[in-house]
């Protein structure tokens, strides 16, 4: 066999085994076998010295050609093999994406606290300063300073839990007015929120404990129209849509004129439904202009200043918004309930 024939057969053998290589490791050893420093093709160059001078150049060229051809074939084959191997690896690493995710428990806020927070933000946006207020109050703040006459039937609506003769659990957040008015001068826009207590047996719609928000403002020229407008603005923000506010005369000793306020039923939009008992309105709370007796008692001249006050219960709002039928769910803290809202 001539040197060229040997080279040619080496080249063919190399290309054939490259073609048959099953993985890159085989390819690596083929590369070493033929093209390594002592590779079969590389070492053909060493024979060059034994060739006649005139054949040397051509033979050198032929070896280089063979090396390049084999190298190109290896590169091409390697590329093909890499993607096949990767595919095989991916198949091996396959997971079931429909299996459930692992999940660390995330905490959620309590729906009632959330509601309080939302209400608070709206009133802060309307210029109210929220203050912290005690739940244990004296008779004076809860009743007397709010213009409740002694031994008045209006007290029947406010059955109180007493701690001593004179100390009781506040029956309404309105009890905060006395402290605030004793320590500030008009103009003022103040609000508070929190737990209130009345001696009421617990069932789906009653509880001895409930939450209220109370706001009041004292300034020059405050009118019933301002009160109505304020409540309207709050209701639109709270319910996120245009609602009508309805005022109806009502009696609370600390306001005159006094009103109960309702807003368009958010369930039926005012057409009348079960929830609003066909009236198209939902009663929210009590409101009115601060009684001149109270202004006078705190040193504010009712001829110069007037004010309005309003308050309402909180539980009713999420009950309406989420269709919750049982008040007790709020304080039961059943995770199955809390984690839904």
């Amino acid at each position, binding site marked *: 066999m001539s040197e060229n024939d040997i080279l040619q057969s080496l080249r063919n053998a190399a290309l054939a085994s490259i073609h048959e290589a099953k993985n890159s490791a085989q390819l690596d050893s083929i590369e070493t076998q033929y093209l390594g420093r002592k590779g079969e093709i590389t070492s053909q160059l060493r024979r060059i010295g034994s060739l006649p001078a005139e054949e040397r150049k051509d033979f050198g060229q032929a070896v280089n050609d063979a090396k390049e051809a084999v190298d190109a074939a290896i590169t091409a084959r390697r590329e093909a093999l890499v993607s096949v191997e990767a595919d095989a690896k991916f198949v091996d690493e396959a997971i079931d994406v429909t299996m459930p995710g692992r999940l660390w428990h995330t905490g959620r806020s309590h729906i009632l606290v959330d509601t309080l927070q939302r209400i608070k933000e709206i009133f802060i946006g309307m210029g109210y300063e929220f203050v912290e207020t005690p739940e244990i109050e004296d008779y004076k703040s809860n009743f007397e300073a709010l213009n409740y006459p002694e031994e008045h039937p209006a007290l029947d609506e406010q059955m109180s839990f007493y701690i001593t003769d004179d100390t009781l659990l506040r029956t309404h957040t309105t009890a905060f007015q006395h402290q605030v008015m004793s320590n500030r001068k008009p*103009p003022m826009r103040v609000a508070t929120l929190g737990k209130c207590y009345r001696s009421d047996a617990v069932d789906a719609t009653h509880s001895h404990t409930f939450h209220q928000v109370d706001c009041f403002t004292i300034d020059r020229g405050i009118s019933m129209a301002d009160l109505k407008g304020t409540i309207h603005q709050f209701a639109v923000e709270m319910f996120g849509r245009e609602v009508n506010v309805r005022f109806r005369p009502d009696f609370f000793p600390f306001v005159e004129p006094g009103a109960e306020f309702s807003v368009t039923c958010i369930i039926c939009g005012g057409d009348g439904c079960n929830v609003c008992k066909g009236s198209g309105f939902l009663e929210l709370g009590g409101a009115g202009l601060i009684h001149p007796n109270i202004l006078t008692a705190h040193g504010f001249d009712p001829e110069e200043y007037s004010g309005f006050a309003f308050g309402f219960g909180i539980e009713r709002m999420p009950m309406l918004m989420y269709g919750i039928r049982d008040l007790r769910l709020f304080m039961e803290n059943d995770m199955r309930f809390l984690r839904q809202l």
Partner: protein
Amino acid sequence: MKVSIDWLRQYIDFTCPLGELADGLTMAGLEVEETIQISKAEFAAQGGSGEIDDTVFDIKVTPNRGDWLSMIGVAREVAPLVGEKVRLPEPKVIESEPASSELIEIRIDAPELCRRYVCAVIRNVTVKESPGWLKDRIIAAGMRPINNVVDITNFVMMELGQPLHAFDLSLLHGNQIIVRRAKDSETITSIDESERKLDSEMLVIADHDRPVAIAGIMGGIDSEIGEQTKDILIESANFNSVGIRRTAKRLNMSTDASYRFERGVDPGITVLAALRAAELIAQLGGGEVCKGVVDVYPSPIEPLEVKIRPARVNKILGVSIDAGAMIACLNSLDIESAIDGEAINCKVPTFRPDITHEIDLIEEVGRVYGYDKLPMTLPQGASQGKDSPEGKLRDKLRRILMASGGQEALTHSIVDIGLARVAGREEQSVNLRNPLSEELNSMRVMLAPNLLQVIERNQAFGNQNVCVFEIGKVYFADASGKSSEKLAIAGAVVGNLWERSWGLPAKALDVDFYTCKGILESLFDGLCIQNVKFVEATDPLLHPTRAAKVFVGDREIGILGEAASTALETLGVRGRPCVFELDFHALMETAPQVVTYQEPPRYPAMQRHIAAVVADSIPYAKLVDLIRTAGGGMVEEIELLDVYKGEHIGEGQSSLTLGVVFRSREKTLTDEEVNSVLALIKDALSQGANAIFR
């Protein structure tokens, strides 16, 4: 107050549909809560005539409007709605000798409790069943027909709002009625056959010898009308509302009469009511009305004159109504009003004791004008709204704890004192004097027991994994017994914090003291509170050897630990929950107002592991102290990587693996520098903590 529409038509004309009338009344402040239809058959079934159908409005009457507890009171509110006048009954009585005053002497000994006392005498009456029309009225008013005399007193009470009482005149001793305070320990058996103990705070109607009625509340059985009664004395009186309320409360009684007196009865209607009853009794019981009612009225009440200023009315209501319209509003309510220069002079009738000042009349104008017509404006002037400092911190804490997996809870403040007992804080408990039940008799002293209860309830619901927190008030009595309250923040965890954790090693998932501590540490981190220490401690609520007090600097601010097994047993909680509870204001006061920024380090850190075997009696905090001291500022962080006990480690010892991060803020540390500090640290650990290195 049940208002029969058929009956109402006797006092006022109206043609509007009843739905419209109900709406009108509701918008005027007399909320029609229910509209009830009573058919002929239903009347007949209750003993009525069976000749009429009727509609009844059930009206909610606010406590300031006693006058609405009568047909004419309601008619007076219909008047402005329909533009008609109210017709009062005009009793026509044929009087005969002798005069009432010859048969009975009236004396008011306690004028402060009885403003006016009127009586009429009717003789030779036949007490019998009422006629159908009267029974219909009584039934429609929600009462039960008894006999003609009792039904008439009820009828007149419903009609005019004046409670009446009928005595059998022959049973009154000494022809005398004395309105006086009861004597202490005097008794009376009321017509409901209970014996009532009286005292000098209570007003009675007495004859010459004994009390015959508890004034304004209930009559006595000794002078009650019966079938044999012939001569009747009708009492129409005006009693002090506070006195009646006190007595009714003390005797635990409430009657239709006391209900009305507590809310105020018109002192101007007393005589009319007596005559009206006399007229009806004569008409339906066939008796003779004695001449002249007896009327004792020591200080007659005159209608109050109140001025209102139209400009003020408009300013307060936020409207612009002219004075003429205001006068029309007031006149339609029988408040006689006329212009007087810049003001309007108003004569407030005696049936409106709720009106005493200009502001009350402004409300009346507003009511008749219609609250629904008031415009909507916003107060002038801007003001800066803001949350309280507590509100701001509360919100921040909520966010931090929710991010740590805490579910926010809201629990009752009124609890069983057993919870304070569980927490070993019974003596601090604020207790209710008039609890709803024995289980709801005190105010919570701590939040944590409530949260353990939340765990118990959720375990009962089938949920073993609970992580909750609450921010709320706790209440306590100080040494002097004065009740106070403060904000607290507490958390409780049990089970594991993974909602779904398949494929993870189960043992690693269960929460323990350290999980709870981690949550607490993230809270301090979030508030940038440094210098927090956990010091081994005992607390009645906590496991004796798994409890800590939490300090910020030297200030003790709360507790952390595994709940005591006794507490868990009492509360029925399974598993081993851990809890913490901190004083909210302490957090507010220790959280820095200003947080300073530190530039991120520029030079690389080097890490070394230390594996040290130390006795369990050496607290980890001590090792940290030793490392930091020996590290001389080069130690940036110390991390506990593993704790191993068991094979190859002596009894009462643990092998701790610590990761120590070294860094300088000035330069890149060399291996040699770090190794020499590490050697110092190991020295310190072996000398200070007898540590052996593996």
